[in-house]
């Protein structure tokens, strides 16, 4: 029962700020609302016994990405005014599309009999993930590092001011 309560709370913590993110007229408020959302998701991970993922989530999302976004908002003077219209003219259409897609996906999810394997909650640890990364997923690991490197270079090239 406690699990359900925790889940509902976490879901609300995730979803309600998410709505704010996409609807708020103030871009800074949107960006700040990302943080509870990410934290909510982190909670869900913990609920799912994925502590390592949860940790990374906090580090990267709540930490790095949100800060980065706020930085850019400040740099581009996006946070100065709330008078600027933040949404475009296709709100009804966009809402409709989102609702329809959600409806369809939910429909499928409910109709599908997922191949449950009713096992007790496994205990994942950082070690098993680390092992996976260095054995089965070694290529993925290496490529990920390459992606990080290249993104870094790319971002620097693009963001640097042309002399």
């Amino acid at each position, binding site marked *: 029962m406690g699990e359900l309560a925790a889940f509902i709370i976490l879901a609300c913590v995730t979803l309600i700020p998410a709505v704010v*993110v996409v609807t708020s007229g103030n871009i800074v408020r949107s960006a700040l609302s990302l943080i509870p959302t990410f934290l909510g998701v982190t909670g869900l991970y913990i609920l799912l016994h994925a502590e390592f*993922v949860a940790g990374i989530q906090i580090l990267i*999302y709540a930490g790095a990405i949100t800060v980065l976004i706020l930085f*850019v908002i400040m740099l581009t003077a996006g946070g100065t005014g709330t008078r600027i219209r933040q949404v475009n003219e296709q709100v009804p259409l966009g809402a409709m599309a989102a609702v329809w897609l959600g409806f369809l996906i939910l429909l499928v999810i409910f109709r599908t009999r997922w191949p449950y394997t009713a096992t007790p909650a*496994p205990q994942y640890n950082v070690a098993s*993930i680390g092992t996976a990364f260095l054995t089965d997923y070694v290529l993925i690991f290496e490529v990920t590092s390459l992606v990080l490197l290249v993104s870094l270079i790319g971002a620097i090239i693009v963001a640097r001011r042309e002399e």
Partner: protein
Amino acid sequence: MHVGLTHYLVVSTILFCIGLYGVLTRRNAVAILMGIELMLNASNINLVAFNRYLAPGAVGGQTFALVIITLAACEAAVGLALVMAAYRSLETIHVDEINVMKW
């Protein structure tokens, strides 16, 4: 009532659609990026939940989620860099004004 896979899937779906709505309706490029981040988070919830409920013996889903988190960071970095560059020459980050080319 027990918390099951479907619960997580519902949350992730809703989160995905909220993100999508943001992507479709926000004028600010950074705000669109936020929507995309929400969508990516939805995928991650899915992956972790599936991993937990359907393939508890392996860590494929979690690994995938970790990769996606990394990718999200990269995307944010590159994307925001591009937005910055565009802002310098176009002096706007509203995508419907970034519109020199059409047809």
